[in-house]
């Protein structure tokens, strides 16, 4: 999706309507930009739920299991210390660190997973060069149609975007 068109929409309802209209026309390489999350937009564009939660769960389980194993290995195998005849392997005493490490690694998975799935950090993108696109982080709402979309055609797509209410249609990247 390196080139294509960017269309600016007037408000969130227009953006949602435009996105679902373009999707109904058969476009699949669609993306939208907004200064705050719009849940209805995800539904309109047919974006499924993120599967990040599964990665986070895996991170949490891995962190907790490793922490428990390490604690057992340290105080029951490598360096058993008899304090008042208490058992070397003492599950209750391992709970706090196991829990904390589970939370810590789940959080790493959440943060870095979200960045990775969003393809960040990526400081430059072809859309950055489009005039006034920088309002997307403030109050601008934009819909993007990728040039590699099978339905894409330079003349017709721009007209279709104008027909669904785009205030402005701008070209992204080199050709088209």
């Amino acid at each position: 999706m390196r080139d294509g068109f960017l269309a600016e929409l007037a408000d969130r309802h227009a953006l949602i309507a435009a996105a679902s209209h373009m999707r109904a026309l058969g476009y699949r390489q669609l993306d939208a930009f907004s200064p705050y999350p719009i849940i209805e937009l995800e539904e309109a564009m047919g974006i499924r739920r993120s599967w990040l939660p599964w990665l986070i769960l895996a991170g949490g389980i891995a962190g907790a299991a490793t922490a428990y194993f390490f604690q057992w290995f340290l105080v029951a195998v490598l360096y058993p210390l008899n304090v008042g005849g208490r058992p070397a392997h003492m599950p209750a005493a391992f709970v706090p660190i196991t829990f904390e490490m589970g939370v810590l690694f789940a959080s790493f998975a959440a943060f870095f997973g979200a960045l990775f799935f969003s393809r960040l950090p990526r400081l430059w993108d072809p859309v950055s060069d489009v005039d006034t696109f920088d309002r997307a982080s403030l109050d601008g709402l934009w819909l993007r149609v990728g040039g590699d979309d099978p339905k894409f055609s330079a003349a017709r797509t721009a007209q279709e975007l104008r027909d669904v209410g785009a205030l402005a249609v701008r070209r992204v990247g080199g050709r088209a």
Partner: protein
Amino acid sequence: MRAAADPVLVGSPTDGELSDRLLAPVWRAGGPGWKILFLVTFAGTLMLGFLVSYTVVEGIGLWGNNIPAAWAFAIINFVWWIGIGHAGTFISAILFLFEQKWRTSINRFSEAMTLFAVMQAGLFPLLHLGRPWFFYWLFPYPDTMEVWPQVKSALPWDAAAVSTYFTVSLLFWYLGLLPDLAGVRDRAPGKVRRVIYGIFALGWRGSVRAWRHYRVAYLILAGLATPLVLSVHSVVSSDFAIGVVPGWHSTIFPPYFVAGAIFSGFAMVITLAIPARAALGLHGVITERHLDNLAKMTLVTGLAVSYGYICEYFISWYSGDPFELYQYWVARPTGPGSVVFYLMILGNVIVPQFLWSKRIRRNAKWLFIASILINVGMWSERFVIIVMSLEREYLVSKWHDYAPTWVDLGILTGTLCFFLFLFLLFLRFVPFISASEMKELAHELKEEEKAANA
């Protein structure tokens, strides 16, 4: 409708207006008040640096703690600072999960407060080690002596809990900051600012594909931070509760410490929010409703703390244990430094009762004074628990009175200055109210209004 009479956001600003109002402090120069405070707190931070160096070079004999009161200012300040952090996480995580709309305008700076408070807290156990350059002995690493940390002790739990707490708070805060850093990148005047904020924004553009992962990650991080609010101070309290010292050996400690932590944290949020909103003219986004709600939370957690005191006293009497009885009924109210005990009662039991009054909850001046007294009260509580219990342990021959030295007082003052210094930098260089969340809130409120009128 209640929301109209008592708004969480005054007026109905557009997205552009909200961006300008909330992001502008980042590129506007600080006023004279900011500059004076900056210089004062910077001087205090330098003093902290000097006193820390002095302590590291000379050793902790410079401090007042000695046997039997081996834990004194260092641990009091540690527990106090880490407790303050808890309200930030409570606001940013728990109130988020409960979909409390009023949290939006105060969550970011409360969370910054958490980070800065935990930074101060971390300093104390490190210095209290005596030889802080061996701090890495806390971690399990393969050394030639084949000695490993004893993970059955509460102290390694503490190290794990506090470092996890700091890291998770930082990740949660930074993830929430990304859309606003992008906003500053795109709006700030001057190329240098745009490049610097652009790097920190990691190339955030607000793509719908990025938002969908962002939303999930933010929600789950809130869920992960929630048990931390309850677990961190519970673990801190086990440092005491696991000991046999009269005044420490108590099962009420974990919930009582957590309540105290959130209580002191809300007081600190009020202490910081009132001057910040006055200085920066933010009465439209931090409204009286926010102060009212913060004060109510302070009152509720204050009552939980008072309940903790009642329980402690009841159990000491009911146990019939002479050492417990002496500690609670003689040493604390009449022993050395008993004035601190009465400061604790004043700040934590009496002052919160004034918050029953709606007039005081909505009066910035009185609320500010109450929050300062509560902060003092909570610091006193930690002094009472730690120092007074150690001063009067089992053997009379072991009794010894404690007094802090000027280095102790200087380091405490220094951390206060460093905390405020970081907070001032934050107010100046980071959008301290989440612009993207405020826009979302403004749209939600508009939709609600439309639904109500229809």
